[in-house]
């Protein structure tokens, strides 16, 4: 049976209920009659021979690019950059697709006699990866041969000697990227495309850049006008990155972009029911749901977190393309949309969603309140093309425990942001004007970012800007099952049951609102007409 496309369920009297993610747990909620539930398309079949597909992509590049073998010559400087631990989510089962591609590229480089090779994790302002995460991404062999020699690097956006100023875009945006990358004869960028935001010129222009460069598109104004930032052609975030990409190209920096797309196999066998439609659950699925959800209720949060973060997704590769950035990215988007796009007609008054245990920035860590905000208002809200799933002035109900918990190693600046900034204001514009600079330039955060595993001091601000478009668009946000104090600090309300949440929402959207539920993960993107 070929995989079925996305589906919109119209809730009627004989509807069994809907699975809501709730952080490190999940539950069944009954939505009112007449609500719509959007299901992601089923997983596309994965390529049967991923290694063959990679070799094929390297031999037959798309767009204006020569095959990789002709680009590799003895004595050249080669830099291989790759996406960091924020992709894919959860981490995929070993071997990671990046490691397969990196090894394929290295084999060719070795055959061509390219000795000067450096690998760089394109962190931008993300935290440095831990040893095991790096190992997972590049594979043991590559790690063991490159890391001890200092040839496997993590991009350092605060190393004054490691950055190179490339130029200005016509709009006056500064372009600054990793010096090693800029001075290489060829950059091979190995990307994993989980959502349509990733990849393209954003890979190098963001992944290998610095605060000086990033602030031109990671700001409130850009984010409010990116509708949505998941829709490359209607996103100012992307237009800015594309302008920067042009500057990089003009400066003579050659990029060989390799992009991969994954299917929707997010959960391993034992959790497969999480991506099935509820009315198709069999006895086994129901038993698994009941035992796991009850067991998770009784499990302390830290332990549940450990269990969930040890999940490795059996993602299958749906395609790989290599060559010129633009051409590659267009093909990538096509495949991402093929897997994720669902056509939805009309906006609703209320959008509900269950937020899972993981987002791009809390891999192997705690989903703190700011990341909850970002996942809901940033990522999930923006999973649309054309217009948001919820009308302007509508209400977003998102389900997550939203505990006042932070990871002091990975997110030190988040704690201070929560305590010192959000206690004063939640307005993105005010936050940006009043606090961003002092956090971005705080030497302690910079130290922790460069030497520890901390996100950069300015990163929580970006999280807040990521939700700026949603804040601007929505009438109210209700956190279902959230800690009331935390919800208040974020500027939202908390409700203990779905009925309470809907009752609270009625103050904004009336007593008979239309409701849409985003049944995700697996990820889906709504094309709203």
């Amino acid at each position, binding site marked *: 049976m070929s995989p079925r496309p996305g589906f919109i369920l119209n809730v009627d009297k004989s509807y069994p209920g809907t699975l809501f993610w709730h952080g490190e747990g999940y539950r069944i909620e009954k939505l009112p009659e007449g609500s719509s539930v959007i299901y992601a398309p089923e997983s596309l079949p994965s390529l049967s021979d*991923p290694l063959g597909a990679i070799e094929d992509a390297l031999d037959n590049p798309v767009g204006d690019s020569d095959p990789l073998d002709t680009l590799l010559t003895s004595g050249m400087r080669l830099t291989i950059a790759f996406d960091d631990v924020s992709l894919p989510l959860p981490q995929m089962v*070993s*071997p990671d697709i990046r*490691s397969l591609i990196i090894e394929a590229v*290295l*084999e060719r*480089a*070795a*055959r*061509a*006699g390219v*000795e000067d*090779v450096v690998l760089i994790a394109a962190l931008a302002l993300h935290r440095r990866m831990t040893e095991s995460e790096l190992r997972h991404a590049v*594979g*043991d*062999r*590559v790690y*063991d*041969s*490159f890391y*001890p020699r200092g*040839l496997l690097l993590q991009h350092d956006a605060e190393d004054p000697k490691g950055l190179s100023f490339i130029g200005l875009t016509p709009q006056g945006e500064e372009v600054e990227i990793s010096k090693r990358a800029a001075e290489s004869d060829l950059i091979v960028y190995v990307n994993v495309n989980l959502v349509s935001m990733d990849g393209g010129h954003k890979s190098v222009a963001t992944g290998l850049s610095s605060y000086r460069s990033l602030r031109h598109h990671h700001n409130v104004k850009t984010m409010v006008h990116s509708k949505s930032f998941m829709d490359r052609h209607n996103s100012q975030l992307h237009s800015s990155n594309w302008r920067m990409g042009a500057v990089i190209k003009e400066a003579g920096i050659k990029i060989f972009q390799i992009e991969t797309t994954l299917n929707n196999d997010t959960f391993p066998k034992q959790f497969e029911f999480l991506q099935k439609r509820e009315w198709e659950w069999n006895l086994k699925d129901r038993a698994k749901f009941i035992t796991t959800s009850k067991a998770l209720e009784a499990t302390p949060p830290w332990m549940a977190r450990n269990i969930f973060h040890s999940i490795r997704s059996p993602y299958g590769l749906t395609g790989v393309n290599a060559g010129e950035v633009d051409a590659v990215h267009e093909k990538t988007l096509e495949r991402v949309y093929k897997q994720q796009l669902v056509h939805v007609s009309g906006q609703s008054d209320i959008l509900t969603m269950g937020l899972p245990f993981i987002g791009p920035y809390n891999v192997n860590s705690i989903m703190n309140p700011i990341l909850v905000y970002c996942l809901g208002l940033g990522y999930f809200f923006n999973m649309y093309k054309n217009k948001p799933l919820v009308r302007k002035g509508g209400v977003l109900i998102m389900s997550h425990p939203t505990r006042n918990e932070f990871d002091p190693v990975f997110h030190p600046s988040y704690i201070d942001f929560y305590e010192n900034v959000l206690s004063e204001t939640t307005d993105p514009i005010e936050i940006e004007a009043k606090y961003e600079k002092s956090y971005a330039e705080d030497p302690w955060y910079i130290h922790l970012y460069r030497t520890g595993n901390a996100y950069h001091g300015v990163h929580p601000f970006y999280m807040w800007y990521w939700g700026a478009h949603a804040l601007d668009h929505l009438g109210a946000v209700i956190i279902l099952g959230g800690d009331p104090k935390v919800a208040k600090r974020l500027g939202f309300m908390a409700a203990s049951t779905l009925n309470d949440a809907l009752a609270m929402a009625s103050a904004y959207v009336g007593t008979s609102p239309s409701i849409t539920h985003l049944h995700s993960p697996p990820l889906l993107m709504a094309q709203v007409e």
Partner: protein
Amino acid sequence: MAKMRGLLGKITMPFPLGRPTWPANVERTIPKSKLGANYDTEWARRYSVRLVRSLITDYVTKPAINIVASPKVLGTDRLKGIDVPVIFAANHASHLDTPLLLSVLPDDFRHKTAVGAGADYFFDRKYKAVIWSFLLGAIPIERTRVSRRSTDLALEILRDDWNLILFPEGGRTPDGFAREFKGGVAQLALKTGSTIVPVFIGGTYEVLGKNKKGFSPGSTVVNFGRPISPSGSNPRDLTKELQSAVNRLGDEVYSDYWDAALRSGASSTPDLADNGDNSWIAEWNRPRFSDTFEDSKKSRWPRLPFIDKPL
């Protein structure tokens, strides 16, 4: 054995209670040997035997191997998702190689893998044949000549979706250096279309080499290579490719992946078989896996203060 038979002989009952004696003037045809390459190992692949063997492999062989050989296993990621059956082709230095390899194979392979064993050595007596085919799932392979019977057996096994471990050198190295690979593996692979997984085994020569009397416990390594698909090559080239793949896997272990890749690209991978015309210098320089791991020198048992006195 002879002694035992003699002993039994004494209590042998007269016919018909005992075995009939052959009248001396009746011509006696020598029965066809059921041993060596002709030994039928079919029974050893039956489900019930497999089950017992898998229990022994997991709960006896593996722990024992861990004690004497502390294997470090590399490259199993390269086995993910490949089509079975496959032929594992490894260099060969010790009787330890087979149980070691069996015990470190990923679960998808471990319990459905037969081992090619020298028909002349492992199957020359009934009791040996039984033991090896039971314990290791060994099948007899004629190593001195290409035998129809051996090839057919291997083919049959591969066609039954059993994986096969073969040592293309045809025997253990006498000196720690590898020997030239023989063509049988390549021929078999080409005939069945099975994938070959090159495997490098290191350190077993030091633990239990040929001509060695007992174990010297130490560290070993098993490095699985990228599978080689046999399509479109001839046996000679395939054998060469296999040998250089194993050489490169060895190079990977003794240096690292990237150096080995560069050397391979420059066709300068050190040949594991190069013994420098038997010069002592080559022997002196021969990489030993246990040299590269400090922990192999450590005591395997907790040191007790009252025993651990310098002598």
